């Protein structure tokens, strides 16, 4: 009995030379060393491919020359940032990026929610399933193919656009909207709606499926119409999911993806389609001496994004009393 009550003391007094007391850190490491071993390769990868470029981003403050390397290149402070802020392109590019991102957000964010709410109302299971299956398909089409389809279909000469124009009595060929600056934003945003409407609704449909049926039944007995139930039962259920998704989207508002814009760009729509990421590519990578300038522009973009994300998250955290927050 005595031994089981105080086993440690018995062991310690029992050994002739007491083992040196190990710190909790060492004991934990001995317990978890295999987990650390598993983590080793990802850690090395992370440091090389993610953190080394962050360290390398300091060339934004230097006059980078390949032969001198990162440390050997002279320190020029904010020179490149100033050059960007004072360049005639600055306002145009920033505005293009913000407008495109905001337009995207206002359209592509709410539509999948409305679509999910509508699908949730559809009572024919088979039709609903079929609609889901079909509307997810465009999500898997690559950007290259998407833009290629846009180019083909919108061709005024032999595309669908031209055919429909003539079908409704148009003479000759319509104007080429693929190379029209004013059409660029609409094409960009609405093709994204076509591609992502179904897919982006999945997450909302998932949270809608957690609505308790008792709630619906009770509301119905109280005389609530289906419309009323959408507003007062379904919608409140998806608000937390919606909040998180909105924060994430707002945080990335300036990081309009390079891939699609770059493919849709041509010399005629450049006044509206030049955004920060494509500008970085052109100035930084296609120009032989643009490494530092391009990095500065990219860094500026990254920092603004980070600040936006943290701000939006902070606001949402306050507004929802700690319910909707990323961290």
């Amino acid at each position, binding site marked *: 009995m005595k031994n089981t009550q105080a086993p440690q003391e018995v062991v310690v007094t029992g050994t002739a030379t007491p083992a040196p007391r190990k710190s909790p850190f060492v004991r934990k490491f001995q317990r978890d060393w295999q*987990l*650390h071993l*598993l983590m080793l390769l990802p850690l090395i990868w992370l440091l090389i491919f993610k953190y080394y*470029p*962050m360290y390398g981003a300091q060339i934004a403050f230097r006059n980078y020359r390949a032969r001198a390397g990162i440390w050997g290149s002279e320190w020029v402070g904010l020179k490149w940032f100033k050059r960007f802020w004072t360049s005639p392109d600055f306002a145009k590019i920033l505005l293009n990026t913000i407008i495109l991102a905001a337009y995207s957000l206002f359209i592509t964010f709410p539509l999948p929610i409305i679509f999910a709410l509508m699908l949730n109302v559809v009572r024919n299971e088979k039709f609903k399933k079929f*609609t889901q299956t079909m509307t997810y398909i465009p999500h*898997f089409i690559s950007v290259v193919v998407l833009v290629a389809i846009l180019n*083909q279909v919108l061709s005024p000469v032999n595309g*669908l656009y031209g055919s429909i124009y003539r079908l409704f009595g148009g003479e000759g060929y319509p104007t080429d909207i693929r190379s029209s600056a004013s059409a660029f934003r609409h094409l960009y945003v609405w093709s994204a709606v076509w591609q992502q409407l179904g897919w982006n609704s999945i997450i909302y449909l998932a949270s809608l499926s957690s609505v308790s049926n008792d709630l619906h039944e009770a509301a119905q007995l109280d005389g609530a119409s289906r419309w009323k139930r959408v507003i007062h039962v379904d919608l409140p259920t998806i608000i937390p999911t919606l909040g998180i998704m909105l924060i994430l989207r707002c945080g990335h508002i300036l990081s309009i993806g390079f891939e699609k814009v770059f493919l849709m760009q041509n010399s005629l729509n450049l006044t509206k389609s030049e955004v920060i990421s494509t500008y970085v590519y052109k100035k930084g990578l296609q120009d032989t001496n643009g490494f530092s300038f391009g990095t500065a522009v990219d860094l500026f973009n990254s920092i603004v994004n980070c600040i936006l994300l943290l701000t939006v998250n902070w606001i949402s955290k306050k507004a929802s009393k700690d319910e909707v927050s990323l961290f």
Partner: protein
Amino acid sequence: MANNAKAIAAAEKKVSNKIGLSREDKIMYTVVNIIVCLLLLIIIYPVIFVVSSSFSSGNAVSSGRVLLWPVEPSVVGYDIVFHYRTVWSGFANTIFYTVVGTAWNLFMTTLAAYPLSRRNFQGRGIYMTLFTITMFFSGGVIPHYLLMVKLGLTNSRWALVIPGAINVHNMIIMRTFFRNSIPGELQEAAMLDGCSDIRYLLQIVLPLSKAVMSVLLLYYAVGHWNAYYGALLYLRDEMKFPLQLILRTILIASTSTDLTQIESSSAQEAAKSAGEAMRYALIVVSTAPILVVYPWIQKYFEKGVMIGSVKG
């Protein structure tokens, strides 16, 4: 999802047996069904149009006679596509990048996700922070490019495989799955029997994780199949180009249907119209592999979104 709508319908039936479906509700259901039908048509129509055009004669395509079904059915477009040498090499390269890249992705993602799924893992917070930071901040494309030059990875096939090893979002999906779907008692029991962490991962966790593995396999594989940015940045040699970059060259960089080129000789006209059918055929050929497996894998994609939506 399915059960829910059914249950609502059942509940409604129960209630409406007592009070009947109101006129307001009838209108609501009709309007919603019509809108959903319209959206469905708008989304499917371009897909049908592209497929139909690819199976039509070049002449029918370029004169705009294809509207819904193939006109003057022909496979001339496909014939031209399969005579492109770069299309074949592009396919081979894309398959290489997809297979090798996805295997590497899954290997590395598992290595990181498993330790992070263990709640009492020493230093878990630090590791997780290191990963999370990269979701919101990066050094940018140029420092990354300079790193690749330094490592000698430019114009190497490995440039498209090694750097993208782990997508942090996918890693979190896997970590959440390990944590929530594999009972902790299992680990306690295994550890009591003297099972090591690595052996536990290999013999117990992995066999139980087929669902999350298939989801991530598909996410990563589709990502590799559709990617062109890395190849655009790092590859110079056309024989190493993935299919998407070849597509870009053929389909986008050389749009030959400008209004200025309308007046041309009849021979050129014929070649050009065959070219139109070829473009559609190329679009179909490059996307077909994904669409063919799509019906079988659809449930996994949905599952993935749902696993991912659980905040861990």
